[in-house]
């Protein structure tokens, strides 16, 4: 752990990513203070599509709502969709990968072959199919983002299990008569910690992009919601009058995605140097 921390601290881009993620988490926690209690949903048509001013630091959107307040209020929404999505994907994904990798054989092989096919299939399309079945809304979006990232977690887990299951310490445990459950739990799962953590960080980044994209397409939380992609969708008609409605939430998405991408890359390079690309 100490070794990892020392290495990570020297990893510049990883630290930058960590700082961005930390900053965004702080912003989420401090959201009520930052917005000074303003209501992100308060419509004020007299002030619609205002350019930035002293009263509205980033201007207002098509309904006269304060843009800065909305972007800040959107952070917990966008972030929670991505984080919940990743958590939803992680548990079944890890189990599928673990079992398919450990009990190779016919079923494991078939399972993994289908997982491979799903990984090659664009996640946003999987999510859209799920939404066409489940309908639109914030929990449906979480569900769609989550289900669509199960394959990638299963894949990461499968590869890890494959790489350790024939190693000496696993063979030794089996030779000593350890039960499968003990081997999986004590010897294989701990080795998967690093790659799964890395995938979680990268997964939050892609989930954020996908969730924002779906909201932008009108397949996310319904209109007044200040989800970042939804704000941009609302501002599409304001390209000329108030470009901030598009620029600000887009920058917020890009920064957050960048933060989690850099953090994930940094974790990969330092947690397990063997994974370094």
């Amino acid at each position, binding site marked *: 752990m100490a070794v990892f921390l020392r290495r990570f601290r020297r990893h510049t881009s990883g630290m930058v990513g960590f700082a961005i993620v930390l900053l965004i988490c702080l912003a989420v926690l401090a959201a009520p203070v930052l917005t000074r209690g303003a209501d992100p949903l308060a419509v004020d048509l007299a002030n619609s599509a205002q350019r930035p001013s002293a009263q509205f630091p980033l201007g207002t959107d098509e309904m006269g709502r304060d843009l800065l307040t909305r972007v800040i209020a959107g952070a917990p929404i966008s972030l929670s969709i991505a984080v919940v999505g990743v958590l939803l994907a992680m548990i079944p994904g890890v189990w599928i990968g673990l079992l398919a990798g450990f009990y190779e054989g016919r079923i494991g092989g078939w399972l993994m072959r289908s997982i491979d096919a799903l990984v090659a299939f*664009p996640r946003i399309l999987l999510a859209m199919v799920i939404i066409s079945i489940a309908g639109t809304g914030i929990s449906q979006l979480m569900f769609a983002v989550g289900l669509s990232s199960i394959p990638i977690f299963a894949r990461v887990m499968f590869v890890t299990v494959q790489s350790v299951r024939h190693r000496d310490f696993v063979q030794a445990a089996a030779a000593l008569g350890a039960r499968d459950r003990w081997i999986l739990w004590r010897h294989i799962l701990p080795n998967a910690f690093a790659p799964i953590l890395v995938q979680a960080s990268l997964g939050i980044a892609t989930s954020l992009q996908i969730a924002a994209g779906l909201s932008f397409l009108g397949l996310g939380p319904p209109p007044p919601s200040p989800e970042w992609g939804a704000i941009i969708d609302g501002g599409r008609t304001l390209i000329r009058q108030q470009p901030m409605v598009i620029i600000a939430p887009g920058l917020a998405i890009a920064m957050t*995605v960048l933060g989690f991408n850099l953090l994930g890359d940094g974790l990969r390079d330092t947690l397990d140097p063997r994974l370094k690309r």
Partner: protein
Amino acid sequence: MTFAMLLRRLGALVVTVLLVSVATFLAMRLVPGDPARMIAGPEAPAEVVEAIRRDWGLDDPLHIQLGRFLVGLATGDFGDSYRTRGPVWDEVKTRLMPTFLLSVTGLGLALTFGIAAGVLAAIRRGTVLDTGLSVVSTLGISLPVFWVGILLMMFFAARLRWFPSSGWGSWQHLVLPAFSLGVGFFASISRMTRSSMLEVLQDDYVRTARAKGVPRVKVLLKHALRNALLPIVTIAGLEFGRLLGGAVITESVFAWPGMGTLMVNSVKFRDYPTVQACVILLAICIAVSTFLSDLLNLYVDPRLRRG
């Protein structure tokens, strides 16, 4: 990779597409509500719904319905749309070309610029240029595709008026969507090219070529790049799916009349048969692109042909 291996690959792809079709068919059963009611519309009287159920065979056992569905697919019959009530295929067929054009142009742009940038970064390793390109590609991966699209539209269409902001008709209409689609893909291609080139440049035959006085450009393009291309072709084939996913969003930004806009509208209307058709067709495109990248690798690397 021999001919037999290629055939086996092809077989696996057919199985994949078949699996996707069966999965979407089964998923349709999870849609809440009665399909006969969806087809008839909300105001139709109960007798009409019953008649549709009988006529369409919706009360047959599941495996018979599945069989009928697969036979339909083989003959290009994707069923009827809940929205237009007409065959899904009639709506989908005009959408294939725009999506194909957009994704192939996006891919072409990304490959051209991505490979060039990757080679440059590799031969100028550790310089400002290398760092700059790596920053650009990290950013490129992080920018949401629809946002890039709107920004390009804002600048090049609304302000400079160089290109039309949306629609379809001339090559000018293609420029902005193709570039916005290419950005994310450019980033991953240039990263891949850089690391692949760095690896190859250390190989003995590159050193030999240099030592015997082959011109630098020729060493780079003929000896190094050709070998570095293998993983790039594979990755490009595998990631083509992600590109298609991006195309779905890009199309909606630019009102491009392809499968993406059709799919988004169909998801909104819960027009499941159309969504299903789009998914199956896109799955076929992805399968074909993986196969093409295998073929291309055979062409680039004669060693693979001997198997």
